[in-house]
């Protein structure tokens, strides 16, 4: 259900390359299968024409790449931003993580993305995927063609999309959307309604699967530390593997805490987790609490905003009160 076609993006990229606006293009490279696209920087027209790709599997958040890519060279980089990417883009700017001058951002409308991983769990032996309007045709090796509604294959983060509106761009392709009134906190609320024992069992079950591959951290646009505390032998909390169930919790609690107020809820952590741990539910809990304790705040909505965790008012709720409120009891 792409609103903008590959050709539109490609032509825009070629145009900007040609007129000298940009020197390089951050986009997706085609893969082996339709779903395994890879982020790549294209240095010239030929490379773009050959391998540039834009389809419903281009879900990865490009913002974090800007940190390393802008540090590499003085050349100007074109980046295509989906609405959710643009929040991370702003958040990174707030934290001075890359040089805005070196980036030309083109906003791309997004009708939601599919996840190759999720799809492959629904369908065995996928040989090709094509999207026609709101239908998805999946060709398989042994089971013929299957048809799905686009909606049913949407990844969780896209089902609960918070915004179709770009908050940063130099230029926009197509029409901009609106900030949505999503149901993204429904699942958090469901957990809050559980008894502590149930919640504990739920999270123990989820987090115990963690293999500490660090994919969640390494993909997270908010995790941009020069050296993560969990990698730093001097931090006192360094750990490479969850040698005990405690360490899984420690890692994920602290990671969520460190991105609290900075997490734009882009959903990359859950997308990349090879073990399907719903990590976004940790981040969303913080977002939900921040909203309910200190007023609505969307990280990345504007550059330079002050996150509630580094702010205060004199009449904030007390921690004990907050925990009650966090239950939805108040």
């Amino acid at each position, binding site marked *: 259900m792409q609103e903008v076609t590959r050709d539109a993006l490609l032509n825009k990229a070629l145009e900007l390359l040609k007129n000298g606006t940009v020197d390089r293009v951050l986009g997706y490279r085609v*893969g*082996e*299968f339709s*779903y*395994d*696209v*890879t*982020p*790549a*920087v294209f240095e010239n027209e030929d490379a773009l024409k050959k391998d540039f790709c834009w389809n419903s599997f281009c879900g*990865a958040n490009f913002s974090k*790449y800007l940190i390393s890519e802008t540090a590499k060279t003085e050349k100007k980089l074109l980046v295509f931003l989906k609405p959710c990417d643009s929040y991370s883009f702003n958040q990174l700017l707030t934290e001075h993580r890359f040089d805005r001058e070196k980036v030309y951002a083109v906003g791309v409308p997004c009708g939601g993305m599919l996840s*190759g*991983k999720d799809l*492959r*769990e629904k369908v*065995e*032996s*996928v*040989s090709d995927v094509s999207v026609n309007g709101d239908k998805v045709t999946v060709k398989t*090796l*042994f089971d013929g063609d299957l048809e799905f509604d686009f909606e049913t294959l949407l990844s969780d983060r896209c089902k609960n999309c918070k915004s179709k509106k770009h908050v940063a761009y130099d230029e926009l392709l197509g029409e901009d959307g609106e900030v949505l009134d999503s149901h993204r906190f429904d699942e958090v609320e469901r957990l809050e309604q559980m008894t502590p024992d149930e919640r504990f069992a739920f999270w123990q079950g989820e987090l115990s*699967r963690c*293999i*500490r*591959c*660090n*994919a969640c*951290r*390494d*993909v997270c646009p908010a995790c941009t530390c020069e050296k993560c505390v969990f*990698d730093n032998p001097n931090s006192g909390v360094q750990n*490479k*593997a*969850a*040698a005990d169930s405690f360490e899984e919790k420690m890692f994920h609690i602290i990671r969520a805490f460190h991105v609290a107020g900075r997490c734009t809820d882009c959903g*990359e952590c859950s*997308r*990349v987790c*090879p*073990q*399907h*741990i719903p990590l976004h539910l940790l981040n969303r809990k913080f977002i939900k609490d921040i909203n309910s304790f200190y007023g609505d705040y969307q990280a990345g909505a504007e550059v330079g905003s002050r996150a509630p965790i580094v702010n205060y008012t004199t009449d904030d709720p007390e921690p004990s009160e907050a925990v009650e409120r966090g239950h939805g009891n108040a």
Partner: protein
Amino acid sequence: MRKISLSKLPELFSAIAKTSALYLPVDTKAGAKFEAWAVGKTLSNALNTVRSAKDFFFPQTENLMDFKVEGKNIELIDTRKECEDFVLFGVRACDVKSFEVLDRVFLAEPQDTYYKNRREHALIISTACNKPQETCFCGTFGIDAAEPSGDIVTYRTDDELFFDAKTEKGKKLLDALSSITEEADEKAVDQQKALIRERLQKLPLKDLKTEGFGSGKTAEFFDDPQWKELSSACLGCGTCTFVCPTCQCYDIKDFDTGHGIKRFRCWDSCMYSDFTKMSAGQPRLTQLERFRQRFMHKLVYYPTNNDGLFSCVGCGRCLAKCPINMNIVKVMKALGGREDA
């Protein structure tokens, strides 16, 4: 050759579990996973488990030994224990092959006794792959998904499971199960093998070849300019390493419990930026070098030291799990696809 009706699987599992611990793939909400069998648990239909079977021999973390420190004195406590016998049921051809790859590392002199202990007490029941996936390329490494190795090989038809014992150990177990299994002839199995082989021919990666890679090819690939492009999107996470059945790098760390020191081993990844970091410096500074190391190791270094055996079994897990969809297939195609290769 023996067989059992699929409807009698619970009986079979219960019979095996009576003599030793039994692990088999079961479905969880996060995909198939090897779990200890218990009444009520059913065998997963998924092609393969999310995590590889290497965990049984080379777990994510394991305690190596303990120390007690008192003043200037140290007491070393050997915490090793004889492992109990266990049966691994439903291991796929690729994963069975991965045990050979791991063996050549851990059982090379000096032998790793932690690994050896578990390996010796394991009985592997493998299963041929009725329905391989588009990400499968075990054939590239000479693995026949229709003919896995293992102590016992099983084939599954629509209603029956066939057993073929390949080792003494396997025969012994099969004999012990003779009361609930029945004699079978090989026809049905041959038919199944033919079906599998036919399906293998339909796989998109069936033509991926290892030619050009292998023993002694360091110079051919090391300075290839394509590494830059291939590695550029790599996040440096350890997903590929940790789901890989053959990756075996580890780290040894000490943990101070407050009343003693536990020295443990845990998985490590050559993709991590601090993998080779030492106080004197860092020989692999960029992700390019670390990325290259992983693939060079699988495709060149390991074969050089192990009679041409590759350190990849084509299970396709990294294809499925890499956050940015970069994987060994793409690397092989890019590097092997050169005109001058």
